[in-house]
């Protein structure tokens, strides 16, 4: 390289570095450097929603792998999960991953190979430490599924349940348990905001209704910290979400988007709506009871 090339290259480098530095400072001061990484924008995207549904299966399998029959709690994530888990809990299921009987020789080759490679042959259950590790892995997977699609009923409820249920989660102390509940409350608040931003699909409003119910349940967990008006306001939010769900459902029936859902998804949605309305009525009954108790205490403070 001759001297002219050296000078030109050095000038370019210095000018570039100076420009990068000055503009970078300007952008940093404007807060532009702070962002949440989201590779290929997959989280919260239409593709993320499909991917989130696809990873519900592996989560279900992880539960079976670590929890012995009888330990299985009810997860509201999957259609038919209740009967599935009830079978597992009673030990009467024939799932290959914890069946103890012989391998079905007549099964298709791929199913047979899956049964051979997925079968637990270790007679010892996981140790508490190992179980905690596996639970943390499940929690990561649930969080990932939730981040992919926060408006999905199953994603939100599974993750929320994991954060609040000591039998399932990774909290081992009382402090961690309360910390988990606080995280769950923040999660619910974010989910409500996120879901109510959707003005076309009736399903997110249903997720928002259950998130609002979870917040109300959390408030009832410490009733002395909340007035009846605050609790009623939260019940009003559940009603608002359910009303939004009904309106969007009617609209989707009118404009034909309801027919785009498969019969399985339609049934799933209707079942969840029914379940959420039951939750709402239970919450209303609890508030009535609390109201009566507080009036009785106010009328007879000495008793």
């Amino acid at each position, binding site marked *: 390289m001759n001297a002219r090339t050296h000078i030109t290259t050095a000038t370019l480098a210095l000018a*570039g*570095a100076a*420009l*990068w530095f000055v503009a970078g400072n300007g952008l940093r001061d404007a807060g532009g*450097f702070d962002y949440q990484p*989201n590779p290929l924008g997959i989280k919260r995207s*239409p593709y993320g929603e*499909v991917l989130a549904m696809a990873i519900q299966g592996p989560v279900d399998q992880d539960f079976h792998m670590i929890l012995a029959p009888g330990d299985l709690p009810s997860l509201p994530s999957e259609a038919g999960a209740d009967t599935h888990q009830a079978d597992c809990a009673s030990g009467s299921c024939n799932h290959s991953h914890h069946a103890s009987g012989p391998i079905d020789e007549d099964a298709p080759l791929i199913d047979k190979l899956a049964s051979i490679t997925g079968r637990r042959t270790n007679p010892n259950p996981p140790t508490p430490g190992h179980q905690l590790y596996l639970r943390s892995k499940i929690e990561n997977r649930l969080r990932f599924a939730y981040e992919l699609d926060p408006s999905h009923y199953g994603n939100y409820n599974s993750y929320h349940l994991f954060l609040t249920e000591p039998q399932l989660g990774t909290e081992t102390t009382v402090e961690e348990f309360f910390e988990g509940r606080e995280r769950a409350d923040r999660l619910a608040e974010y989910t409500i905001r996120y879901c109510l931003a959707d003005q076309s699909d009736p399903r997110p409003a249903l997720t928002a209704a259950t998130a609002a119910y979870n917040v109300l349940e959390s408030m009832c967990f410490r009733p002395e910290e909340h007035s009846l008006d605050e609790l009623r306001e939260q019940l009003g939010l559940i009603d608002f979400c359910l009303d939004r769900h009904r309106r969007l459902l009617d609209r989707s029936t009118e404009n034909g988007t309801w027919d*785009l859902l498969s019969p399985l998804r339609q049934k799933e949605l209707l079942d969840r709506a029914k379940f959420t309305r039951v939750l709402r009525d239970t919450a209303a009954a609890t508030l009535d009871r609390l109201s009566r108790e507080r009036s009785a205490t106010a009328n007879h403070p000495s008793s």
Partner: protein
Amino acid sequence: MPLFRLTLTTLFRRKAWAVCALLVLGMPFVLPQLSSGTENPALLKPALAQAAWCMAWLSAVFWGFFAAARIGEKNSRSGIGEYFHSSGLSATRQLLEIWAALMVFVAPLGIGAATVCSLAASPAAADERSMWIATNFQYGLLFILVVAPLIALAVAVASRFGSLTGFLVSAGLTTYGLYGVGYMKLLLSIEGNPLLSWLWSASPHYHFADPTERLRYKLGAIEWSQFPLLLAYFAGIFLLYTAISRLLFRVKAA
């Protein structure tokens, strides 16, 4: 411009550009069928826009940088560079001609994604549509400004250290700038290491050129008063990488 024409013809005859053109112009219409847009038509246009830009970025990284690295290596190891050098074409000129030929194929990836988004995924409201087109135009410009120096870097690094290194350096820098700096920030919020903090500030923040979030939430175009600052930021990186590329580029293998 003999080396420009030679590189242009070589790239054209290899035909890999046709695959990238198909990815950017065709896949945005196919991929939404795999998204939840099939259940909720309101999501079809966002899915299309996301697919178009993702395809443009993936094509630029996996094909653009690979093609650049391969040509950079071939130029120095096959004797082509030495031949042109002996015929009076300086190393700087060779780098510029190779780089320009590559950009003829890579720049249309960003322009194609912006065009697909503008024509097929524009919002219905007139004022939102004009903002949408402006946003895509801005990101098309930023895409070219980000990818161009990395192409030159891939050519230069490959001419000295081989095509694999050339490809990995540019692809690694892009991935790090798009996503890695975000994860580093998360790490910094836990570990307040001053060295890491400085490294994070001095990293190329390519996520500014990624339009997926902005388009999905229809945030509108970047304020025109602020846009020159972004252009200056990437122009600074452009100049520095060009200088580094010139220092690294060589016309014949050692």
